[in-house]
Each structure stands twice: as C-alpha cells, then as structure tokens.
C-alpha cells in the first residue's frame, strides 16, 4: 500500500512539475519581435503526450494496484477471530460472538491474528475507518459488510465513521486496542463476566438508582435487572477509555456531566438529560465506577 502511494505520488509530482514549468516558460519567455506564432496543428505532438504516454503510465499504475486490492480482500484465514460491529446514531456496538461479550466504542483485538469484522447498522449508513489499520468500509442498512484487520504492533488506534450520518456525525469515534494474544484473552474473559456486585454503601445505592430509574430502559448491565438494548451496554463501563464514542475521556467529572445533561457535551444525541438529585447522582457514579 505504501509503495503504491509513493509511486502515484512520484508520478503526480512529475506530471504537475512538467505542466507548471511549461506554462511558466510559455508565459515568461521573450520572443524576438518578428517571430510569428507557429501555425502547425500539432496533432502528432498531442497524440504522443496526451494519449500514448498517459495510457502507458495509467496501465502500469492500474496493474501495480491490483495485488494491493487483493491484499485487502478476504485472506481466507481459518484461524480468524470474528467480531460483530453494529453502527448506531452515534456510537458503535461491539460484540464478540460465542463469548457473550458486548461493549461499545472500544474494539479489542489480538495482535498477529486476522480479525474478521462483520459490519451492520441499526439505523442509517455509517462507515468504519481506522486510518492506520484498514481502508474504509461502509455499514449499509439491510446488508452485512466484511472487513479484515491484522496488525503486529500493539497499541491504541483511533478511528471513526466516515459516511455522513446526521447531527453528531462529527462525534462518533472509536478506539481499536491491539493487545498481545494473552492479554487479549484475559480482557475477553473479564468482559464476559457479569457486573460485580456492589461493595455496599454508596455503590449499592447507585445500583438501586440504576435499576429503578430510567437508565435501565435503555442500558443493560449484565447481572442486574437493567437490560435495555437502546443505548450502549454498561456492564464494564469503567474499563473503557472514553465516553460517548470518543467524545470525552472516561473520568468521574465527565461521567457525572454526561449523566446529568449529555446534551451539553454532544448536542442532539439520543440520551435525554437525567433529572437526578445530587445524592442519587453521586451514588450512581460511585456504582458505575465499580463496573471494571
């Protein structure tokens, strides 16, 4: 891919330079008075420079590009890990088939292994793009698209949707966390567990707020009675790096602000402001922070 880019870049730079130099030369050279414009039609010159040379270059670039196209297609790897991605306005639902793990906006993957992403959308068209890892692939309503990722370098890669999807199109990022296989396996096991029981006190009160309030109608916390499917799964909320699809870091302050009135942080998002008393809010935050 990089080789293809530098080839195209070099050709482009050359063509642009040739045209710029010719235009400047034509504009600035001084012709002796009395030298008249040449009147030949120049058909042969245009045929060579405008048809034959470009055709050779284009065919060359096209042929060179074909192996790259094949490389980003289905690698037919039997050992691949499948991850389901469901686009929502304006967040990503990530699930790992077979393990029961459902999370949001943070995609963990093992290094050195092919990952097969199945892309679907719950509402409008989106597009999945982690610039350092993969080319764009759209999430198209009514269809399932496929994408294969593979990286050998552990790290956190930022990505986002790239197809215009409405008001908060700008704030719909995600992070791909590439981990060594052992670390990934540990993460997956942890995520598969239901939410831990609150240690008591404020956190236990927070769980009651969550289950009895409006939270549970949209959000799910596995291991409790909250099983809404409209918003992101919160079972391991505290383990995520960001809130609201990469909008703000997952800290106590932002979490509280988001719950009380998320509309000031990401206007137009689907979560209505929560009219909680300060005590209830503190309790809820305390509980959510235990969801590691």
């Amino acid at each position, binding site marked *: 891919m990089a080789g293809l880019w530098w080839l195209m870049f070099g050709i482009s730079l050359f063509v*642009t330079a040739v*045209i710029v130099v010719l235009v400047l030369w034509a504009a600035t050279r001084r012709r002796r008075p009395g030298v008249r*414009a040449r009147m030949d039609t120049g058909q042969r010159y*245009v045929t060579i420079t405008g048809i034959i040379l470009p055709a050779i270059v*284009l065919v060359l670039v096209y042929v060179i590009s074909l192996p790259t196209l094949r490389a980003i297609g289905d690698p037919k790897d039997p050992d691949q890990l499948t991850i389901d991605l469901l686009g929502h306005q304006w967040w990503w639902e990530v699930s790992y088939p077979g393990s029961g793990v459902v999370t949001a906006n943070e995609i963990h993957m093992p290094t050195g292994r092919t990952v097969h992403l199945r*892309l679907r959308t719950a509402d409008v068209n989106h597009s999945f793009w982690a610039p350092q890892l993969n080319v764009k*692939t759209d999430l198209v309503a009514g269809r399932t698209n496929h994408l294969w990722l593979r990286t050998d370098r552990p790290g956190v890669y930022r990505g986002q949707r790239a197809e215009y999807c409405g008001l908060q199109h*700008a704030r719909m990022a995600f992070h791909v966390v590439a981990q060594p296989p052992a670390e990934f396996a540990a993460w997956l096991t942890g995520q598969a567990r239901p939410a831990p029981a609150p240690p008591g006190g404020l956190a236990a009160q927070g769980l009651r707020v969550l289950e009895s309030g409006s939270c549970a109608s949209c959000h799910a916390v596995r291991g409790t009675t909250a099983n809404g499917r409209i918003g992101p799964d919160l079972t391991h909320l505290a383990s995520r790096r960001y809130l609201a699809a990469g909008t703000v870091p997952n800290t106590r302050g932002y979490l509280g602000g988001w719950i009380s009135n998320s509309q000031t942080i990401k206007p137009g998002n689907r979560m209505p402001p929560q009219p909680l008393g300060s005590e209830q809010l503190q309790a809820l935050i305390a509980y959510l922070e235990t969801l590691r």
Partner: protein
Amino acid sequence: MIFLFATPMSFGFGNFLLPLLLGTRDMAFPRLNAFTYWVFTFAGVILFSSLLFGRAPNGGWFAYVPLTGPKYQPGINMDVYSLGLLFLGVSTTSGSINFIATSLKLRAPGMTLNRVPIFVWALVVTAFLLIFALPPLNTANAMLFLDRRFGTRFFQPDAGGDVVLWQHLFWLFGHPDVYIIVLPALGIVSAIIPTFSRRPIMAYPLLVLAMVAVGIISFGVWVHHMFAVGLPQLSLTFFSAASMIVTIPSGIQMFAWVGTMLMGRVVLGVPMMWAMGFLVVFVIGGVTGVMFGIVPFDQQVTDSYFVVAHFHYVLFGGAVFPVIGGVFYWWPKTTGRLTGVRGGQWSFWLVFAGFNLTFFPMHISGLLGMPRRVYTYPGGLDWDLWNLLSSLGAYLLLAGLLVTLGTFAHSLWKGAQAPPDPWGGETLEWATASPPRPYNFPVIPTVHSVHPLWDQGSLDSFAEGARFKDRVLAEGHELLVTSELDAEPEVALEMPEHTPVPFFTAVSLFLAVLGLLLGVYVLAVAAGVVAVLVIGRWLWPRWSRREAGHAPGEKARETAERDAAAEQEAEKEKTEKGAGA
C-alpha cells in the same frame, strides 16, 4: 453550489454566447428559453427560501437514504430537496434541448461541424450529458418523495427496499454531473487560450473527440463513488479501469492547451492569467483524480479531507477559475465596458493564493485521517496546523473574490468604452457591437474556418452577405436555418413574437410543486390542470397569423428560393472571375 450554481452556470454563458458564436440571432426556441429561465428562478426560490423558514435540506448533497428517509428526517426539509431538484430538472432539460437544437440548426452558413468553436462543442456535449444524466436523478427523487410522503418502500431494507439503489441512481447522475460542471469551463479555456496565444487551438479534432469521449465514458464510472460500499471486488476492478481511461481525454486537452501556448506568442491578458492558473490547479486535481481511480487508495481516503481537496481542485480550480476568466473575457462584449487591468491582476493573484492555501492543506489533513463533514474534532491529532492554514486561506480567498467583484463594479461605473473586439478574438461574437444589438448580427456571415475573425474570407462575408435577403435583418425576427452537418442554408425562419405564456406555464408548475411540497394536493392538481391548459394555448397553431398571409414557412421558402438563385449567380461569377484570371 452544485445544483444551482455549478450545473446551470453553463446556461448563463450559453444563452448569451451560443447565438453569437454560431453567427445567429437567437436561440432556436426563444419561448422555451423564457420558460427555462422562469422555472430555474422558481426552483431556486423553493430551494433557497427553505433556508429562511429553517427547512433547508439536511441530508448532505447526495442525500443518502436511510438518513434522508421519513424515519430519520421527518419534516419537509428533504421534500424541499427532492421536489426542488425535480422542478429544477424541468428547466435544465428544456434548456439542454434548446442548446442542442440551436447548435445543430442555426449555425451560420459554412460553419460545418469541423468549424464549430470548441466552446460550442463543450456546451452541446454538456447538454447531451444533462439529458441522459437527469433521468436517474429524477427517478431517485420521485422515489424518495413517494417513500417520504406516501409510504412506498423503495429505500427501506426491512420492507424489501434497497438503500444502495439510491446510491447507484444518484451517482449515475452524479458523476456525469462532474463533467456537466467542468466541460463548459474547459470550453471557456479553449476559447481564451488561442486568443491570447495568437494562434489557433492545437489538434482541434482531437480536442473535440476528447470532449465527446469524456461525455460517453463519464456514464461508465459512477461506481468509483461507491468503492467503500462493499460491492464485489471484481466489479470494482472494471470501474477502476474505466475511471483511469477518463484521464486520457483530459490529458489530450491539457497538452493541446500547453502546446498552443508554446507554439504561439502568449499575451498575458487578465483572462489568460485565469486560464493559466486553471492549468496549474486542474492538473493537481487531475493527478489526485487518478489516485481515486485506484480502488485500495480510494477506500483509504474517500470521505476524508483528501477527497475534499481533490474535488475543490477539480471543481473550483477546474470550473470557477475558467468561469471568472470567462467573465473577464466576455465582460467587454456583455457590458460594453473594459475592466481595469490592475484590479484584474490583483483579483487573480489573491484568489490563486487564497485557493491554494485553503485547499492544498486539506490533502494533508485527509491523509492524516481527518474525515469530511465534521463540525468539530478533538485536538492533538496533528490536524490543527493544516486546518488553521485552510482557515487563513479562506479569508484570503474571500478578499480575492471581493477584489474581483470590485473590479467588475468599477468597470460598470467608470470603465472605458469597449471596442467590438478588445482582445483580437477569433470567433464570431467579436464581430458584433459591444454590447451586441438584440439581433446580434445585422448580416449573417459565411464562415470559412474554425477561426472566422482571423480569415479574410469570413470577414468579407459580412459585406457580401448583404446581398442575400435572408441574411439581412428584415423584419426583426428572422433566423437562417442551416443543415445539421454542413451548415448549408435551408430556410429563413420567422421567430415568435413576445408572449407571457411561458411565464404563466412556469408559474402554474411552481404552484403545483408548492402544493405537493406543502401537502395541499388540491392546489397541486388544480395548478397541474392550469399548466396543461396554458401549454395547450402555447402550442396552439397560430391561426390569426396564417389568415393575415403570414403562413409560417411560406415566406421562408420564398426567400430560400430567391437566395439559392442568388448564390448560384455568385458562384457563377466567381468561377468566371477565376477563369478570367
């Protein structure tokens, strides 16, 4: 920007210049022309007034379903889009038919197809593109309107509809539309460069073929807007190859322009500066365009700022630069005033610098992963500097455009009187007064070459033509109809007199569209019936004139016969002269 400026701007140039370039007195269908003007105005009123009411279309210019469907965009915003564009399409289609008919039937005698100015070729190819490209868009918009208003399910996957259908239909219009926007601009460049290079355009037949080829190929590349949709790789390779091929006609034109300049003697007039600025900017848009033809590269940078940079280099560089150059070029002809040279130079350099400073950094922010259509982004992603540069460039560009407007205003206010031919141009419009009389040419000339004002034969014909009755302005409303290929004189055609009927037709259609838009279907039906009646009145044979002894065609036939005889005589005279010498 795309629908109401870039696409129809060729019609502005065309309506004024086409009859002048062809050596005739009016468009073939003046009433249809008035109709297209009023429909365009009313469609513009619908689309722009929606901004005042806070109901502007809100699904992006390509309006992908399901985002634009009834579920995600309730309210009439997207109905304004679908109906407004359908209505606008009526204007564009009628205008295209008029352009084609005019160019085929009203060319001055002797202007055979291989002597037609390149700009006219560009307008005709554009008109054909519009006629074939608009039906998919109209179909899609009609389906979208039915989906939104009457509960059909064309684009609803859960009911068996298909959202990718919209994308196919839209881009089947959308890609040819790129050439609909760019081709007239390329035609303008092909008009400016020979004039300021003091020699005819190079490789004329190849240039014409290139334009026609672009028109045809542009219908076979639409899927390159959809490389990331998840279509099978095999079909992507076909569209990738087709997208590469479309580069070749552009290469032909680019090297023909540069060659013309190299072989000629370049005079750096203000219009020429814009044309040369265009060459530099357009080649950059062209090379990045080739990159987009390569599927894996496209999938990486599509919907990023890289594509924003690319299409501004093509559409701003490729269309707006030539259009401003064209306005400078034909300004003296249109207004009868010269523009200030210094103002023109300042406006060019400011716009050129501002444009590049605005859009070049977007290549880089796009390669750094910045997606398009975001109103905000977090800091620390290395995008900040490039966006800052783009913002500064935008102000510079604004300053440049203000200077451009100021130059034109100054010319209107204080500009020197323009002679008929201030630039030493090659085509027929420079033979008329500045500004031209309503009838353009007192005498219809005979054309002997592709650059009639540079050859003595064509120039002499203005005097010689006075001998032919049908070429002289007789009763104010006569055009000379010639044959399609060889422009042999056929008949003198009497043009219709003034009438408000086209205006009333447009008004009744406007009311019908408003009725549909606001859901007042009684109004829509009533206005539709009125429209049919008015069109009936429009098409009704003109009995009164026939009774008065002005049967259409009769007088024309007489003059044609008379002229045929006169021409034979002239021919005989010429051969006798030749024999005498």
